[in-house]
């Protein structure tokens, strides 16, 4: 299914980690890793994010990344109805291969292309409500809602940890605790400096 290639996954990640937008479609081969520090509840959290390829040829490879993920962003392109229509298949696939507690966020991307919109915002909302997902429309180009999408997903994971839904001692759900005492002096914001506090993974 080629439909999901080009919806803007890599662009969203790039916008989130580097605050840049890349207009040329640089097809993802397999997966690419990205990371960023954020602060939730006054705690430093490092998000480790795996950007997967949308092309069908990489399907079995990308499936390997469901297990061990604490959250997932399910992205479609609001200017292409076909990408929206196949959401169910993807959702089933994701649910089947992942931890049942995995937080899934539905993203309708390319909201800047209002004139070419094919999927109404209400449709996205309805789909999300029906399947118990959080929903948001984003634009990797203008950066609208990009921060929010990632941070809200991280927050939800964080809440689940607080509620004790995730067993943080079990690595298999993609969460790791760093040394709590670390990073006090050396400006914990810089990647790699100081300790790595609780991390989520999308």
């Amino acid at each position: 299914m080629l439909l999901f290639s080009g919806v803007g996954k890599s662009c969203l990640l790039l916008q989130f980690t580097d605050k840049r937008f890349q207009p040329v479609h640089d097809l993802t081969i397999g997966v690419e890793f990205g990371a960023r520090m954020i602060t939730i509840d006054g705690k430093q959290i490092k998000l480790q994010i795996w950007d997967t390829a949308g092309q069908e040829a990489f399907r079995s490879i990308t499936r390997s990344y469901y297990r061990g993920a604490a959250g997932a962003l399910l992205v479609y392109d609001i200017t292409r109805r076909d990408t929206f229509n196949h959401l169910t298949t993807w959702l089933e696939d994701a649910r089947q291969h992942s931890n049942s507690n995995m937080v899934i966020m539905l993203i309708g991307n390319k909201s800047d292309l209002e004139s070419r919109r094919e999927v109404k915002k209400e449709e996205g909302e309805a789909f999300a409500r029906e399947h118990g997902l959080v929903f948001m429309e984003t634009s990797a180009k203008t950066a609208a809602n990009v921060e929010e999408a990632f941070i809200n997903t991280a927050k939800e994971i964080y809440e689940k940890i607080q509620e004790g839904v995730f067993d943080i001692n079990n690595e298999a759900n993609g969460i790791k605790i760093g040394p709590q005492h670390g990073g006090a002096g050396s400006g914990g914001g810089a990647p790699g400096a100081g300790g790595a506090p609780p991390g989520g993974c999308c």
Partner: protein
Amino acid sequence: MDFLKSGLKTVLGAPETGQQPSVAETVERLVERASNSTLLEDRRDACRALKAMSRKYRLEVGAQGLDTLRQILELDRADNETVNYALDTLNNIVSPSQFEEEEDKPHIPMNIGDQFTEMFIKDPHNIQLVLDLLDEYDFRVRLSAVQLLVSVLTNRTKDIQEIILDKPMGVSKMMDLLADTREVIRNETLLLLIKLTKGNANIQKIVAFENAFDRLFEIVSSEGYSDGGIIVEDCLLLMLNLLKNNSSNINFFKEGSYIQKMLPMFNIPENSEEVGWSSQKVVNVHCMLQLVRTLVSPSNSIQIISSCQKIMKNVGLLDALCNILMASGVPADILTETINTVGEVVRGDATNQEFIGNVIAPSYPPRPAIIVLLMSMVNEKQPFALRCAVLYCFQCYLYHNEISQSNLVQTLLPSSSDVSSLTSGQILCGGLFSSDVLSNWFSAVALKHALIDNLTQKEQALRVLLATNIGSTPVSLLHQCTLLLQQTTKLQSKVALLMLLSTWTAGCPPAVAAFLGAPGGVPLLVHHAGSNEHDDNECLLQGLSAFLLAICIHFNDDSVASYSRDGLRQLLVKRIGVETFVAKLSDVSRHELYNKAAKHPQMRAASPADLLLDYEFCKLFKSLEGPLIESVCQTPGRSSPEPQLEQYKSLIRQQDARLQELVQQLETVTAHAQQLQSALNDSQAANSLLRDENTLLKAQVGSSGTDGTHEHEERIRQLTEEVRRMKEELEGARRSQERSREELDKMRRDQNDLLELLDDQDVKLNEYKMRLINLGQAVDEDNVVEPEDNLSSVNNKIVDGKDYIVTPPL
């Protein structure tokens, strides 16, 4: 054999007559029993017997039993013992190594294990069966399944990697085994993962995603870091596989704070000198150093290198490495590799460069570590590899760092205040004029690195004076080099001095003038460049002389009356001839050592004789070759009002043309590679068909007894011949594909370099433009716009050529 016979008898029952059944018959009956018997015990016994025979008679067992054994994996899965026999038998059949039992059987083909592997994996479901058995907790079954996977992976790495990637959770399953508390299984799994991850980026990423680094560091630490056994080495080898050329994993490694975790590996205990280094420890530390170098390798992207370098400095890794440098009792090869590693950790990072500049060695009297290192570089008694490493480290220390470059030149200037202590400049000058050829070469190249891309230092260095004899007037360093060039008879020294002088004079008219003013310089160059000796390395001397001569024309500001730009050009045309000149230059860029040196900043010289050209010089040569030729070919007398601007314009034009040429070549090569690939696929398929046929026929020969099956033998010979031929063809196709791929890569790199260069040129152009404007020169609009136009047209071309986009370094 007796044991085997009696074993068989109990399984098969005693033969009716006194006649012994042939091996093939025995195998046939066993296979029959294993597949058709309704009693589990019978099937189990048959499998046990097949296993016993499979080492000595793998051809027969494999040809007849492969399918049945596979079926047992599926149907008898509930019985660990039977499954285990089947797995072991399969493992013997596909084993990549020859068994002792087979030594007296010359007719068994060497690659029989490989052939059976191919037959086994023809149905990818078979691999799934083995993967499923990994879930079995039974020790023997799990271990045998892992071993079978190791064997088939050894034989058919790429095929199995693809199959496993295609199986849901295939890789994850293997990762789970790393947590097995039974060490034997854990260790065998490590071997499996090393094979599995070799050269496959997708698998590498999944393995990393499955927390490989955490697990591996846990094992390494529980085994005592560098003091641990071979298991530590295996863990490190696996990490190396995961990181090599895999930027996504390197990013993950860096972001996951794993660089910090490497630190304890470099702890050298206080008493290490007395305790000594075991050979395993040497290997372990060597692997760890490789790990560090993989992260900061100059072939990685600049962002990755620089962020890893910063982390390494911040967490104290660079410090730990320097401690190894200064510790006593460290084996020479570890010391050498540590020097290389330190070099790459500081290369191009000003903070880290400054840091090692300030490290003080615990020598008496205490000296900067850099000084101690340079002293070893010009010391004939030190091992060759170590001297090369010091040069590389020193280059890295100077790389892109105007301060360390200036510090070096400063130590040579008369104003230098501290006269009592030994300075790096003094050591290098000493090496330059020493009687040891290698010291000449190392020192010239080291000095050259202080001048690269640094006009200020090129001019400063002109002020360096040497007192050659007491009482005589001091001579400038540049004159002394020119003199030495005339006096030395050693090719290596001459080449080194020519590289130094070329770097010095390139882009620096005052240095050109100084060289032209040195007695004997130009005649010597003309002599060498015009010489016609055909010795392989002699042509480097000729080419480099021509190169320097052309630099003297190109960057000539007409301040030396006897060798004006036009005068020199006419001299060159008359004495050497334009065509010969161009040919001499291209001799250099076609030279084997040139291509070797241009590949990587680090010299990879196997022996002292290989040291001639160096990476940075090749870069300079590549960038100037075109403009120099153009300059020499220009009609004399035509002096343009803005020579600099003209030069850069022509440079840009040439590079534009070159770029286009490369892009076209790239297209051709890509098409060619595709053709080759499909040809390769075809012949591979044909080959595999023939091979299967061959194996089966061989087995049939076995089953039909040994009596006079001449036809069969003949047929086998034919087929073997055929297979051999096909293999050769295949090999040929592979090789040429490999070649085209290499070419393609090289072109990509060239294109990259060109792009970078273009950027540089653009900046410089603007600078010159500004300068011209500031100098009050009227720069007419045409001249201002045209170079930029060229540049943007080049960029457009790159964007259009989407298939072979090269992202310029950011």
